[in-house]
Every structure is written in structure tokens, then in C-alpha cells.
């Protein structure tokens, strides 16, 4: 059994210390699953994209049935309940290929994620037997109803009420849920309500129960083909056996399921970034201006390189997290009667990483979409070309499954909680770093990838993040959670650190794989993962120096003497020679242009 890593531990461990799961380690079967999914989306879903967007003829519901027949809805459901019982690695490769219609992708992702998983992880044996096979086969479409008009980010502030009937056989639900994905199509909803207006609880509500109805479709900026409606509960009678989990413990379900939803959204972002390159690169090759293909212009090549960098780093993060989740599940005894619930509790350990995945993935995709539109010029803005809808469709990713603001607050908030409980030794690390700051760090300050200068940047980034966050915590103590400007900077330091760490680990592992026999890894000049990692790590480190400076200036709040102390420390971190990142970007852009899209080899 693998020794489980504590969530957030990436801040303390040198990058070379542990290995992660990388996309290159997928086995043939997992790759075949991914291909089957992209085939289905390309050949069956894509031709119906317009009809999906216009909600014509029940097309999404029919496609869900088809997706169910082909097994795409059963990947993560255990075999005992009619599923395939596959791991999160497999689920990641399936999810990243479910992208040709973003609207239908959201329909599927909601169903297989936040709609199915509450029952899998928190259901009783009877509930699982009753509902999971139907969800796995697509006979039932699922939804997850947490948000209300007055309770969005503050989901626990919900007003929907549940009262036990006189005969104690039913709960009577009253209230209304807002923005529910699959609202018009769902046969089964996980609805959150407060028992007696107090105890936050989850209920499994079938569409056919009396008192359930949905409103008209919400008019939206993007993912117009997904269903988003209000769900009304008017004296809705829910049998007591349909209480999911314990009365008053609904928050455990709500938040734990979101940990998975966030990673899943990140996995979908990976596919989105690659899809943008697939459309953008061929277009820029064909398009001529000033007598040249615009793909020969530096500023267009930069966009192509940047999209590839975003795709690679996002991919590194998502597969790493899938590996963490799988290892967490593997640490639990399969014969344990509460196996599924224990799995999700083990996954909770990685709440920080899940929030990072959500924020990084959604923002990387947004950057790619924005540059994609720009690279097509007016045609990027025209609905005749695919980039226009891609950008509108991916805007939602920064909003649902917890807004990026909420997720940014979760990152330092959870870290501090863990540190206070002594689960990760952030506090013990700080005196060590202060000691090192006195004499300066011994690092390789110049040179290419093989010199170790980039690995050293990643390791120093961790210390920089811990140092800057540590100073902030000492200043504000328990009040820090109300200092949102500070919390955001702390989150961004952690996000960049995790992203650098994931990309660097993956690239090192790829190189080791390519040269399994040799001790020393020769770095070929135009190795794409190496070029990408160099640019990303270099720029992320510079960004972090800036961010830390900002954070410490805020902490010092105009006290010049105090800031001078911090600035001295910052100078110690500012040890690396700059690189000419244009050189690497050119190699990356050239590679992607030759291959008409994202490819690493």
C-alpha cells in the first residue's frame, strides 16, 4: 500500500522527492476509453450541436441514452451496481475527450459527477441498488440541487425546508432551487434542504414524486444547450428512506462531492485547451495577410505556444490529482462495508488540490479561448467559426462548482486549518527557511533544464510561498480569513507552486521514461515538455516574486522599516538569471504548427 501524501504537502516536499501519476502512464485500455469517447462526441454529438444548442427534439436526452448504452455514464460506478468500477485516471481521460459539444459535455459531467457520486459515496446499500444501475445505464438522468436564489456561494444559507410528516413516513419539502443543471431532464435529484429549517440534509428526490416541478430554461451566455432551470418543491413528499446520509450532515455530502466536481471540471478544461489548438493552428496556417501565413508572425506564434503551455500544465495537474484520488481509494480496504464513504473521506484530504485544479483549469482554458478568438481576428468573433462559442461556453467554468473567489479562499483557509491542527508542518518549516535566508540559498542560478536551475526554481518557489504566507499569518493571526486581498495572494502563490511542481515532476518523469537505462538524463534541445516546463517555471517564479512583494508590502502597510526586512529576504529569493523565453516559445509554436494542434512528440 502506498503511503498517502497529506493534501498541501506539495509546499514542503522537494520536487524530486515523490513521483506523480502522469498522462504518459495511461495504459492501452484507458487510452482506448478516451478514444471511444472522442469518437462518440465527434461522430454522434458534434453533428447535432446546433440542435443541442436550440434544445430541439429532445436531442440531448436521446444522446444521454446513447451515451449510457455505450458505457460513458458508468465509468466510475462500481461493478456491483452495473458500472465498470474504473479509477479516476480512466475517468480523467474519458472526461477530457467529452468536449466536442461543451453543452452536452456539461450535461454528461453533471450526471456522472455531482449527480451520481453523492449516492455512490453516501448512499445506503438499498439506495445504491435502487438508483446507481439506472444512473449508470442512462435510464435515469441525474441532477444536483444545492443553489438557491438567496443562497449561492453561501450554500448553507439555504431556505428550502423539510418537515417530517405526521405518520413519520415522509419528509415534506418546500422551497425552490436555482440554476440546476439538467433541471428539465432529470429523473433523480439530490436536493439539499434544512430539516425543521435547521438541520442541513440531502434528499434523493425522484421527478415523479408529488410536488416537484421545473421552470422554463434559463437564458444564458454560454452552454446554451445544457438545461438550467429552477426546481420548485411544493409540499413535495419524499419517503424517509430517501434521506441521503445523516440528518444534519448534508454539508459533508455537498462539499465532498464538490471536491470531485472540481477536479472533473479541471479534466474537462484540459480537453478544452487542446480543442482550441486544434481549431486555431490550422486556421492561422491557412490565413494569409501581408503576403504571409499569419502563423509566421511572432505574435500569433506566441499565442499558439501559450495555449500549448496552458494545456500541458493543466494536464499535468489533472492527472496528478486523479492519481492522488486513486491512491487515496487504494489505501482503503475493499472489503470494508463503508468502503465508498471512506474513499470520499480520503479524497477530502485533497480539498486544496481540488480547488487549485478548478481555478487553474478554468482560468487556463479562459486564457486559451481568449487568445484563440484573437488569433482568428474577426472570424474569431464570428459565430460561423468555433472559437466564438468556445469562449462563451467556457466562461461558466469560473463560476460554478464554487466560484473561483470561493475556491481561492478555500486554498489558504484549508492550509491554515491543517497547519493549526499540525497535519502539515508549515510552522516548523518557517524557522528553517528563516535560517537559510540568513546565509542565502545554494542553488544553480543559471543554465538550461539539465543544469538543475529550473528544478531549483520550483524548490525555492515552495519556500517563497511558505515564507510569504507565514509572514502574513503571523501578522494577522486568526483575523487573516477576513483579509481577502491577502488570502487571494496566498492562494495564487500556492496555485503557481502546485502548477510548477506538477509540470516539473511530469517532465522529469517523461525524461526518465525515455531514458530508462541511463542515470543522467540527457536533454535533447527541442524536447517539447522541457521547453514548456522551462517557460512556465521561469515565468511563474518571476510572477511569484512579484506577488510575494505585493503581499509583504500589504502586510508592512507603509512601515518602511518592516518592509526593508522583507525586501532583504525577497532579494535572497531573486537569484536566478533570466532566460530568453522567446527561444523556447518558438520551438513550441513550431512543433504545434507542424502537427496542426497539441502534440508532445
Amino acid at each position: 500500500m502506498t503511503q498517502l501524501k497529506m493534501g498541501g504537502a506539495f509546499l514542503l516536499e522537494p520536487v524530486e522527492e515523490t513521483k506523480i501519476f502522469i498522462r504518459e502512464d495511461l495504459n492501452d485500455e484507458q487510452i482506448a476509453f478516451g478514444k471511444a469517447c472522442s469518437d462518440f462526441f465527434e461522430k454522434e454529438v458534434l453533428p447535432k450541436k446546433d440542435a443541442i444548442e436550440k434544445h430541439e427534439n429532445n436531442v440531448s436526452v436521446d444522446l444521454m441514452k446513447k451515451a449510457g448504452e455505450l458505457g460513458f455514464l458508468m465509468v466510475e460506478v462500481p461493478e456491483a451496481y452495473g458500472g465498470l468500477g474504473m479509477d479516476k485516471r480512466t475517468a480523467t481521460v474519458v472526461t477530457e475527450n467529452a468536449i466536442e459539444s461543451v453543452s452536452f459535455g456539461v450535461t454528461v459531467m453533471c450526471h456522472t459527477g455531482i449527480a451520481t457520486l453523492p449516492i455512490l459515496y453516501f448512499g445506503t446499500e438499498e439506495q445504491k441498488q435502487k438508483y446507481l444501475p439506472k444512473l449508470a445505464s442512462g435510464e435515469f438522468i441525474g441532477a444536483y440541487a444545492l443553489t438557491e436564489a438567496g443562497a449561492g456561494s453561501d450554500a448553507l444559507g439555504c431556505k428550502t425546508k423539510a418537515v417530517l410528516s405526521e405518520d413519520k413516513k415522509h419528509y415534506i419539502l418546500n422551497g425552490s432551487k436555482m440554476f440546476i443543471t439538467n433541471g428539465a431532464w432529470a429523473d433523480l435529484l439530490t436536493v439539499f434542504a434544512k430539516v425543521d429549517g435547521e438541520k442541513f440534509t440531502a434528499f434523493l428526490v425522484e421527478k415523479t414524486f408529488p410536488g416537484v416541478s421545473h421552470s422554463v430554461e434559463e437564458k444564458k451566455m454560454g452552454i446554451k444547450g445544457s438545461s438550467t432551470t429552477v426546481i420548485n418543491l411544493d409540499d413535495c413528499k419524499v419517503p424517509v428512506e430517501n434521506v441521503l446520509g445523516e440528518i444534519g450532515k448534508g454539508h459533508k455530502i455537498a462539499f465532498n462531492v464538490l471536491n470531485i466536481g472540481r477536479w472533473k471540471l479541471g479534466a474537462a478544461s484540459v480537453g478544452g485547451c487542446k480543442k482550441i489548438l486544434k481549431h486555431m493552428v490550422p486556421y492561422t496556417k491557412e490565413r494569409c495577410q501581408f503576403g504571409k501565413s499569419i502563423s509566421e508572425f511572432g505574435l500569433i506564434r506566441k499565442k499558439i505556444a501559450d495555449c500549448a503551455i496552458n494545456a500541458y500544465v493543466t494536464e499535468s495537474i489533472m492527472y496528478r490529482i486523479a492519481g492522488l484520488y486513486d491512491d487515496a481509494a487504494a489505501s482503503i480496504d475493499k472489503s470494508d462495508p463503508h468502503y465508498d464513504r471512506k474513499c470520499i473521506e480520503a479524497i477530502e484530504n485533497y480539498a486544496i488540490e481540488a480547488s487549485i485544479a478548478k481555478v487553474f483549469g478554468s482560468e487556463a482554458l479562459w486564457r486559451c479561448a481568449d487568445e484563440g478568438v484573437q488569433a482568428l481576428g474577426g472570424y474569431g468573433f464570428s459565430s460561423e467559426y468555433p472559437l466564438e462559442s468556445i469562449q462563451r461556453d467556457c466562461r461558466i467554468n469560473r463560476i460554478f462548482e464554487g466560484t473561483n473567489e470561493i475556491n481561492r479562499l478555500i486554498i489558504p483557509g484549508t492550509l491554515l486549518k491543517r497547519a493549526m491542527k499540525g497535519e502539515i508542518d508549515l510552522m516548523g518549516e518557517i524557522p528553517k527557511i528563516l535560517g537559510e535566508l540568513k546565509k542565502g540559498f545554494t542553488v544553480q542560478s543559471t543554465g538550461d533544464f539539465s543544469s538543475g536551475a529550473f528544478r531549483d526554481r520550483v524548490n525555492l518557489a515552495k519556500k517563497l510561498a511558505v515564507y510569504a504566507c507565514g509572514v502574513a499569518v503571523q501578522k494577522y493571526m486568526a483575523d487573516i480569513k477576513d483579509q481577502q486581498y491577502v488570502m487571494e495572494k496566498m492562494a495564487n502563490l500556492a496555485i503557481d507552486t502546485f502548477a510548477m511542481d506538477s509540470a516539473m515532476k511530469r517532465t522529469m518523469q517523461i525524461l526518465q521514461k525515455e531514458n530508462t537505462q541511463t542515470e543522467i538524463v540527457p536533454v535533447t534541445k527541442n524536447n517539447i515538455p522541457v521547453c514548456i516546463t522551462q517557460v512556465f517555471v521561469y515565468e511563474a517564479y518571476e510572477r511569484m516574486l512579484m506577488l510575494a512583494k505585493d503581499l509583504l508590502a500589504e502586510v508592512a502597510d507603509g512601515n518602511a522599516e518592516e518592509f526593508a526586512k522583507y525586501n532583504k529576504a525577497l532579494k535572497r529569493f531573486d537569484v536566478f538569471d533570466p532566460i530568453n523565453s522567446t527561444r523556447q516559445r518558438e520551438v513550441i509554436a513550431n512543433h504545434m504548427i507542424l502537427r496542426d494542434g497539441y502534440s508532445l512528440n
Partner: protein
Amino acid sequence: MKIAVLVKQVPDTETKIVINANKNGIDESNIKYIVSPYDEYAIEEAIKIGGETTVISMGPDRCIESIRTALAMGIQKAIHIDTQGKSYDSYQTAAALAKVIKDGGFDLVLTGKQGIDYDNGQVTQMAAELSGASQVMVIDKLTINGDKAKVERRIAGGSKEVYESGFPLFLGCEKGLNTPRYASLPGIMKAKSKPIEKKSADELLGGATALVEFTNFELPPERAAGKRIEGEPPQQAAQLVKLLREEAKVI
């Protein structure tokens, strides 16, 4: 009924072909391979008919991937004829396949009407001939009634030919015969445990030697840029006639 499906692995239709340094083949690096699309109709038809189904593919190790696709769609077992790094022409391929088919005692052999890589469309007929079976090519309808098969093929002018044949029988399948299914995820999982028997191409040849040798590969010449004729319609028409007469020399 014992049914064999002959499947060829070919470069994806979207591949940009690059010729190798020796000009005697294509550069195989960076190529994505797929099951030749017409073979998918053969696979689907075999699964629909049912009985004992076997997929047979000749090629290097990478063609196991295509074999697995057929197994994932629902074919029961497989034979991989390993070419071990050598290449064979259509005749040799037909000879090796005919040997396996005769030894296996197959009643019906379904193939695509042609492989979409070299588009030779010869292997089915030659293999049928070598194994002493009947064959009909480019069929888009098949009905089996006891020991007789009725097949239809479309011919020029919108009419069709109808054949009836006994077994053993080779059929080259055309688009329109059926709609190939997708490999489902459970299908992919099941395919993992289905047996793939390996045979050596060299041993099956029985001394057949190549009748065709590739001496040179060339890409088609790049299309010249088009010409835009400006002006009012009467001038445009006059200009077009002039160009057709003087430059294109077609009138």
C-alpha cells in the same frame, strides 16, 4: 456459421503523408492508425449475422490495436498474422490469408471493398481464388438463407446486380451495407480477455513471392494557384473563353 473478417490497419484519413528518405514508402512516424473504414462494415455485418466470428489482420505489432477495436465492437476472437517488420504485396498477403482461412474452415469471409491506404482492392479476390471460394465485391446488401447467401451490388446507371451463392464465400463490403456500431466501454474491457492467436506471415506464405515491387514514391504535384477573372460578366466570359483556349487548351 464460421465467419472471418479481414481487417487492415491504415493511416487515418486525415494523415498528411510524408515520403520516407529512401522514397520506397511513407514515413511512419507520427501517423495515427485506424481500422480501414470499409472493414468496419465487414465487422458490423459479421456481428449482426452472429455465429463464431474471428477477426484476422496481417501487419506489424501495431495492428493489434485494430484487432482490439474489432474485438471491442463484438467479434469473438482474433488471429494476428505478424509481418515482423517485412512488407508483402497484395498477392503474398492474399496467399497468407488464404492459408489461414482454409485451415480455419471459414464459411463466410467478410472484408472491406478495399483498403483505403493503397486502394488496390485486390486481396479479397485473390484470397478467394487461392482458397477456392466464390467472391462478390462491392456489396451493399446481404441476406443469408440456410446454405445460400443473396447479395446485392449497385452498378452504373442506378441499377443493381443480385447474386446468389453457396459457401465458402468472400464478400467485399461497401458503404450502405449497415451502420457500424461504436465500441462500447464494456466492449473494450471484454476485448482485453479475448484470445489473439499469433501466426508468422513468412511461414504462411508457402513460397509465394512478390509480384509487385515499389520503386519510387512521389507526392502529387501541388495545385497551382487559381486565377481570378475580374470585370463585368460579358468581359469575364470573354476572358474565360480566351484562357480556356490559350492557357488550358481545352477548347
